[in-house]
């Protein structure tokens, strides 16, 4: 199941050229600065840019090629706009059912009751959309799109217009929707924390072209890409809960490269969890420290070392099993420890956060 994108679009002062295939499962983030063309790419997929040329195939179904252009209203997709674009003349329920009513009964995989429960909209159904909060409006916009039982869900910075509190409120709903409905998502964003929290796959865009594409945890740790060199550079690890240390208020996790402890989290044994480890929170030791306050110590191998924007810093990529960690250390430490690719060392992780 793939989405084949070969699209060209020209506007005065801007050119979009995309030629790639992405998996039609999980969440694919389309990431880049404002103006890099990520929203335009999403609009091309939706059929909202009639001047786009090229070929677009979703799960083997041709949506566009040299001779065909399926109009937006015939493409089985859901689109969540940045500003929601709810219909002000309809109630919350009217908005939710607008697309649902327009698809054949046999295609209605997603039901209004489920969406209302999943997105916490039961109490709002009879409200006017002008009376509800920004976060609630975006939840209605998501529910409305999901209720068309789309083959792919397109989300254009759905959280960008919200304040931090509304964002925090809506993210769990978003994750739940992804987990329970397993609809592939193309998620446009310029906020790396949203992306590391939600995405499995990533398209990195720059000036109308795709700079890099691949699994999220690879792309955010690649030394030749800008993401690993930002102040917030981090690695993402998928781990499993193995138990709790109730006396010390800790939760124990395991992943293919070792085990980690985090502050007691409200999770069940064998729950899957995604954690983020910032490059600046990782220190490197040549031997296993026995007298450190740092609990998380992983045996790792140095993959490579690259320059960081600050001349006094370097970025070290470390392999912990199949997982990759980033460590930002000083150039002096690099020389002092004489780190070379292939060296077996210990990574001391000062802080692990659930994304």
């Amino acid at each position: 199941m793939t989405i084949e994108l070969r699209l060209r679009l020209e506007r005065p002062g801007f050119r979009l050229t995309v030629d790639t295939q992405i998996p039609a499962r999980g969440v694919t983030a389309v990431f880049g600065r404002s103006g890099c063309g990520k929203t335009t790419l999403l609009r091309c997929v939706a059929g909202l840019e009639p001047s786009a040329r090229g070929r677009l195939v979703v799960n083997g179904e041709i949506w566009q090629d040299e001779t065909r252009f399926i109009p937006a209203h015939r493409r089985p997709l859901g689109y969540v706009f940045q500003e929601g674009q709810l219909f002000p003349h309809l109630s919350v329920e009217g908005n939710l059912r607008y697309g649902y009513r327009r698809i054949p009964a046999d295609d209605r995989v997603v039901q209004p009751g489920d969406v209302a429960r999943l997105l916490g909209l039961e109490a709002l159904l009879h409200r006017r959309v002008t009376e509800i909060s920004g976060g609630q409006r975006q939840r209605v916009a998501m529910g409305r799109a999901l209720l068309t039982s789309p083959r792919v869900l397109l989300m254009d910075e759905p959280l960008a217009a919200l304040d931090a509190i509304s964002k925090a409120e809506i993210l769990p709903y978003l994750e739940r929707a992804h987990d329970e409905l397993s609809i592939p998502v193309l998620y446009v964003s310029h906020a790396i924390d949203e992306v590391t929290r939600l995405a499995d796959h990533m398209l990195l865009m720059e000036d109308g072209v795709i700079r890099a594409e691949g699994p999220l945890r690879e792309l955010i740790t690649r030394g030749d890409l800008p993401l690993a060199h930002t102040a917030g550079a981090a690695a993402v690890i998928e781990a499993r809960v193995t138990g709790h240390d109730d006396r010390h208020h800790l939760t124990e996790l395991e992943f293919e490269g070792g085990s980690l402890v985090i502050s007691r989290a409200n999770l069940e044994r064998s729950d899957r969890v995604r954690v983020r480890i910032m490059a600046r929170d990782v220190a490197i030791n040549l031997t296993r420290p026995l007298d450190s306050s740092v609990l998380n110590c992983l045996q790792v191998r140095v993959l490579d070392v690259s320059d960081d924007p600050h001349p006094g810093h370097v970025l070290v990529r470390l392999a912990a099993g199949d997982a990759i960690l980033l460590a930002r250390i000083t150039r002096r430490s690099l020389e002092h420890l004489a780190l070379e690719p292939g060296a077996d060392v210990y990574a001391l992780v000062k802080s692990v956060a659930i994304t």
Partner: protein
Amino acid sequence: MLHEWISPQDLAALWLTLKLAAVTTVVLLILGTPLALWLARTQSRFKLAVESVVALPLVLPPTVIGFYILILLGSQGPIQALGGPSLAFTFTGLVIGSVIYSLPFVVQPLQNAFAGIGAGALEAAACLRAGPWDRFVTVVIPLARRGFLTAITLGFAHTVGEFGVVLMIGGNIPGETQVVSIAIYDHVEAVDYASAHVLSGLLLALSFLMLLTLYTINGRIRMVMP
């Protein structure tokens, strides 16, 4: 009782006026809606020229409009030259004249309403499987309903108040082309102020009631749908 106040001929003029205004409004909605949609969405270089033509009846003396329509419809006009009927001094001719005369009163409110809707709501509807006609009925019309109400009321009321154009192309045939405004003019010329009072009062009350209704309904819509 009514006959003590108003003569059968004046009653016929009143009925004809209302019929003319109703037919004109319907024709204007049918023609003006696509025109207003085009004006609200187009980036064509002809947009300004078309907008100016639509607005012409606002500034031209009705006699000028009436004169040209008379030339168009009359016995030596292009319509007859192409084998069409002579439409001067007929009800159809009046409708054509009124449509042109009241065009801006329908097109401009609709155009403003359509322009205010924005592309986003329509794109959202398209992504929810609504085709073009479906989008027009379920998104454009409800969101532009204040514009439609204004267009209907102004188009109707303005046609009721028409004088110069009708006089030029309709003449003054009682029961066929004589509308209220012309009947009033005749009464005043004949120094029959009593009849002129009745008709003028009716027109004044009718116009006031129409506008009052419009503003009341639009005020309510504004309150629930900012």
